[in-house]
Every structure is written in C-alpha cells, then in structure tokens.
C-alpha cells in the first residue's frame, strides 16, 4: 500500500532528495498509483501523458520539498495541475466555491453509474473537484487550496454551472 508505511516513504523521500536513484525508483513505485488515479480520472484520454509529466515534475522538484510527511499533499497538487493542463483546460480557469459545494453535496457514486461517462461530460477542473472528493475526501477549503480557487466569483455564472453539474450527475 502506498501510504501504509509512512515511515518508509519518508525515508525514501529523504534518500531520493540526496540523489539516491534506488530510492527514487522505489519512491516511484509508491507514488505512481496515486498520481495515476488522479491523472486518469481528471485527464481521461490524456491521463498517460499527464501522469508522466506529473511524476517528472514531482521528482525534479523533490529537493525543494521540506517536509517529507507532506509528500502526498504536495504530489496531489502537482498531479491535479498537470492533469488539468493535459486535459486542455485553460490554466487560469477558476473553480467556484459553489461548484465545490456542488461536488461535495453530489450523490455518492453508487448504483449503475458509468463514472467515465459522467467525467467526460464535465470540464477538467470539475472532474478534479470530484476526484479530490472521491479519492481523498477533501473538504471544500482543502479542495480550494489545491485548485487555487479565487473566492468571490460571479454568482449567477456559478449558479448556472452548479445546475448543469447536478443535471449531468443525476442524468
């Protein structure tokens, strides 16, 4: 399991930061499934490219990670951004708090739901919200932080987006 042995992962991070390539290879084994789940669900067909780009970014910047314990949150942030970028979303697309709320209050994925079809009908940034909620159970504040949400976006537009989002979700 990826995060079952936090102590080991932290040690791997420290060794990898010193340039130990055996540790880098082992850390790649640990972190790739998590990055793959984020990129696969957010970037869909571009998921392979997104996952590779995310992993490259993670390992290139690993020396700058001060707290090895924060690896998961740090990797999540990079993976989400690379996935959204790979999916063709504009970089500065803001995600509204209302949209975040919609994701949080959306029905659970139970019953006969084609997850991929639902995801395909959504914008990448909205997929990211769902993935963060589903995979990590992040609350609105945490998701806003990962996605760099700027609060105070125009409410009418947000309301329309939420309505469309819920309609697709329950369709």
């Amino acid at each position: 399991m990826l995060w079952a042995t936090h102590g080991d992962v932290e040690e791997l991070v420290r060794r990898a930061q010193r340039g130990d390539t055996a540790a880098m290879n082992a850390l790649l084994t640990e972190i790739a499934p998590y990055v793959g789940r984020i990129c696969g669900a957010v970037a869909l067909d571009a998921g392979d490219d997104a996952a590779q780009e995310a992993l490259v970014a993670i390992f290139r910047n690993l020396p700058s990670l001060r707290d090895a314990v924060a690896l998961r949150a740090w990797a999540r942030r990079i993976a989400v951004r690379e996935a959204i970028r790979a999916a063709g979303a504009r970089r500065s697309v803001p995600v509204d708090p209302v949209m975040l709320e919609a994701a949080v209050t959306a029905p659970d994925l139970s019953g006969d739901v084609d997850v991929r079809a639902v995801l395909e009908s959504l914008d990448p940034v909205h997929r990211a919200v769902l993935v963060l909620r589903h995979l990590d159970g992040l609350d609105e504040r945490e998701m806003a932080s990962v996605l760099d949400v700027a609060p105070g976006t125009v409410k009418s537009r947000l309301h329309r987006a939420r309505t469309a989002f819920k309609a697709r979700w329950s369709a």
Partner: protein
Amino acid sequence: MSEWPTVELGDIERLRVLSRVLPGVWMEERVLDTPYDRVWSFVSDLEGSVHMFDADVRKVRVVRREGERLTLWGFGSWRFLWLPNLFRVQLREGFCWMSSQGYVVGMAAIPEGDRTRFVHLEGVHVRGPKFARFLARPLEWVSRLRHRRHVPHDIDGIERCLGLRV
C-alpha cells in the same frame, strides 16, 4: 458503479520518467525483431550477458540475491582501469534497475506482438549533499553526451548477441 479511470505506470514509462529526472543519463528505445522471452532471458542474466553487449564492462558478479533484490559487482573494462563498482539491483520480469554510488543503469522490455520494445538507460548520477551534486552537474552533462552514443551501441550489442545484427 463502473471503475474510476486510472493510469498505470508501465516499466517503459517508468524509465522515461527517470531519464527525464536524471540529467546525466541517456535513454534509448528500440523495437527488437525477436520475441520478448528471448530478449529478456538474455539481458536478465546479468552475469552472462552484460559483458557481451557492453564494451565498458569486463565482468559482472552477483554477490547477493534476495528475491528481486540483487547486489553485484560490475568490473570495468581496461578503459575504466578494471575498476569495480558495487550496484544495488532490482531485477524482475521486464524490468531492471541498477544503481551504484555514481552510476545508474536501467532496462525494460515489453512484448509487441512477435517483437520486443526494449528500453535502455545509462549514465552518471552523483548522490550526496546538494552542494556536491551541484558541483557534479558538469560531469553529468558530459556523461549524457557520452551515453548518447554508448547506449545505442549497447543495444546494437544486444542485437548482435541475439543474432539480429551482423
């Protein structure tokens, strides 16, 4: 409920990622015109194969084996003054990762029909404190340039050993 889409990192993709992270290595990818089993049974016999296809290696001796974890000595050719290099190795089906204090080698293979996609990565990578690695960066750049020729030669050697090239 259907499964959430996910991406699995294959061994070839793993080497692609590592090659982009390590500035002193060069990676080459080639499709070999022979079945996977033949390729992997040859290259995974490290003691029997490496000195056959890599002109920089005189011999390889495995000193410890625990499952897919190996410890081995690689002895350089005369060009490297026959110097030994101690490697920690992960060797499993389709994937091999060898790392020493200053050198790294990676190999991966997957079947492609009756042929084999083979990836080979090799080069200098200095580990240690940030400052030491900064000072070693020019050495890694030189290594990358050198291995740009060396790695394809290694794959040529594998093809020769497998009878795919004269």
